[in-house]
């Protein structure tokens, strides 16, 4: 029999409903797995009490015949979502000990749907990073290892690296993530799981610690496409508390899953064929094209001419918005305060922010402050917003010809911790394939598609039209069914 912890959302939900196990048995199994996997450093805090309380409520609901969509399912929650009564840190010293008195809309929806919380998952500090190495709570380690016999600790991707590591290690069945420039998709690709960033505005940003508000979107990370659809459905929906929330109905993504792509057109953007792309990734991309053709889709070559400007555009806009958003950390209302002897108010602000923010966060605040400063605003920020309009227009034009786009998710498999942390620019380049869809606000997902020569997972990315998460999920399902990705990391972490 399959162990409970090998099951994903659909397996747990359906098994629980069928009476194969109780919700309490599920919660106990995952709480045990979480407690035994400290070597991954995937969690900042564990919340077994929350998972157990939700499980007991689910068992009562089953007895009463009042099941909710996620009754019996425990989840990991990225520590960027405010959770009432449970510490929320954004992996920064600045918010050490911060215990929200309110609930983020996304977690409120998940808990109202019956889900429990196993703990708060580690991440790059304020979601700024691609490897989890900027966390103030130590980096998350990927459960995967290269097949070269070495034990090099690998990056789980970032910023949602606690989420990706925990799902790949089967210590949580699924988790929330957030994606500003690839923070769901790149870690999903690195760890052999599925992850979807929906259309900007699908999920409420209320109660999510803000990084770059015009880009930040919550999304779902899970073992497979079906679980991603179930979780995203429960997270999405209009929220008057977020001024950019979209007032549109949430489709039944799970019920409408179909891997039959007859009549669909899949675009292959030539600008994603970058220099120095490992041949294995290029080969996997070609394989993905054949899989989608096999599913009935017509393949069309398309051009997104401004692709190469997406990263520099992002590294103006995201730091600019971050410098503004993070101005709130002043040592007065919440979080850290550093008050040197005899310091005045201004000195307290500066000391607090110097002590609370990590180096990458400071770097981005300084870049953002510079590009928004008098005399430079038009040359940097306004210019970037114009190029962003051109990038969005590229996607609009492509989606006049095709239904979805297929690309690799990342330009490499997982790299070793420490390998790229010396040069910030080299780290930024890892998001080359994920940032354009973020700038355009369109939905995109990564699905596991194969292993490289070192035995590490590689992902393919599907990008869709605004509000067409269904098209993205369906193409993802077509790839998933043909890729037959069943590889799992060897368990070296359990105690």
């Amino acid at each position, binding site marked *: 029999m399959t162990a409970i912890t090998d099951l994903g959302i659909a397996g747990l939900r359906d098994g629980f409903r069928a009476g194969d196990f109780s919700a309490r048995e599920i919660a106990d199994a995952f709480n045990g797995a979480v407690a035994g996997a400290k070597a991954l450093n995937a969690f900042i805090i564990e919340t077994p009490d929350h998972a157990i309380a939700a499980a007991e409520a689910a068992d009562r609901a089953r007895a009463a015949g009042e099941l909710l969509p996620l009754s019996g399912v425990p989840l990991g929650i990225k520590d960027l979502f405010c959770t009432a009564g449970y510490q929320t840190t954004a992996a920064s010293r600045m918010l050490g000990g*911060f*215990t*929200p*008195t309110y609930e983020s809309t996304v977690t409120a929806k998940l808990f109202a749907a019956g889900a429990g919380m196993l703990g708060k998952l580690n991440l790059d500090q304020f979601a700024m990073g691609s490897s989890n190495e900027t966390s103030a709570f130590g980096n998350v380690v990927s459960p995967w290892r290269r097949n070269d016999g070495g034990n090099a600790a690998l990056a789980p991707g970032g910023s949602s690296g606690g989420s990706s590591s925990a799902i790949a290690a089967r210590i949580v069945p699924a988790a929330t993530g957030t994606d500003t420039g690839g923070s769901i998709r790149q870690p999903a690709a690195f760890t052999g799981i599925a992850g979807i960033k929906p259309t900007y*505005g699908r999920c409420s940003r209320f109660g999510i610690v803000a990084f770059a508000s*015009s880009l930040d979107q919550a999304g779902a990370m899970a073992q497979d496409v079906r679980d991603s659809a179930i979780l995203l459905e429960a997270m999405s929906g209009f929220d*008057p508390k977020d*001024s*950019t929330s*979209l*007032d549109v109905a949430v489709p039944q993504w799970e019920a409408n899953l179909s891997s039959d792509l007859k009549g669909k057109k899949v675009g292959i953007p030539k600008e994603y064929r970058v220099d120095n792309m490992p041949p294995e990734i290029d080969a996997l991309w070609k394989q993905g094209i054949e899989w989608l053709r096999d599913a009935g889709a017509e393949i069309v070559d398309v051009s997104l001419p401004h692709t190469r*400007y997406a990263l*520099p555009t992002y*590294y*103006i806009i995201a730091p600019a918005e971050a*410098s503004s958003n993070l*101005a709130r950390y*002043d*040592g*007065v*209302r*919440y*979080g850290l*305060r550093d*008050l040197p002897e005899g310091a*005045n*108010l*201004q*000195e*307290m602000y*500066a*000391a607090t*922010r*110097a002590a609370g*923010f990590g180096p990458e966060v*400071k*770097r981005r*605040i*300084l*870049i953002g*402050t*510079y590009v928004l*400063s008098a005399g*430079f605003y038009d*040359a*940097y920020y*306004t*210019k*970037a*917003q*114009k*190029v*962003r*309009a*051109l990038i*969005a227009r590229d996607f609009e034009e492509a989606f006049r010809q095709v239904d979805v786009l297929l690309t690799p998710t990342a330009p490499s498999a997982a790299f070793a911790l420490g390998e790229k942390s010396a040069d*910030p*620019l080299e780290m930024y380049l890892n998001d080359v394939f994920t940032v354009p869809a973020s700038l*355009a606000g369109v939905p995109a997902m990564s699905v596991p598609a194969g292993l490289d020569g070192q035995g590490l997972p590689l992902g393919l990315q599907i990008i869709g039209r*605004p509000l067409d998460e269904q098209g993205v999920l369906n193409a993802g399902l077509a790839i998933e069914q043909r890729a037959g990705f069943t590889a799992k990391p060897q368990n070296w972490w359990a105690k």
Partner: protein
Amino acid sequence: MSVDAATVRKIASLARIAVTDGDVEAMVPELNNILGWIEQLGEVDTDGVAPLAAVIPNHQRLREDVVTDGNIRDKVLANAPQAEHGFFAVPKVIE
């Protein structure tokens, strides 16, 4: 455009982040490396292009002008590093 140590100190002061001489020395080349890279946007012809305001078309909503929140002073103050007599407390700002 590139930044020198004085500019980095000025930006850090605007951002209210205390920096040491060592910090500034390390940041000058790092920031110049990043700024030099983003300057490639200068190649893009953006004449007549309006800066993007919203990625997904949305309308600005208005709500009824009524009180929807409040009377939660203790919750608001719950995470303050220093709260006194129902207020946030800060170092003296008026001499």
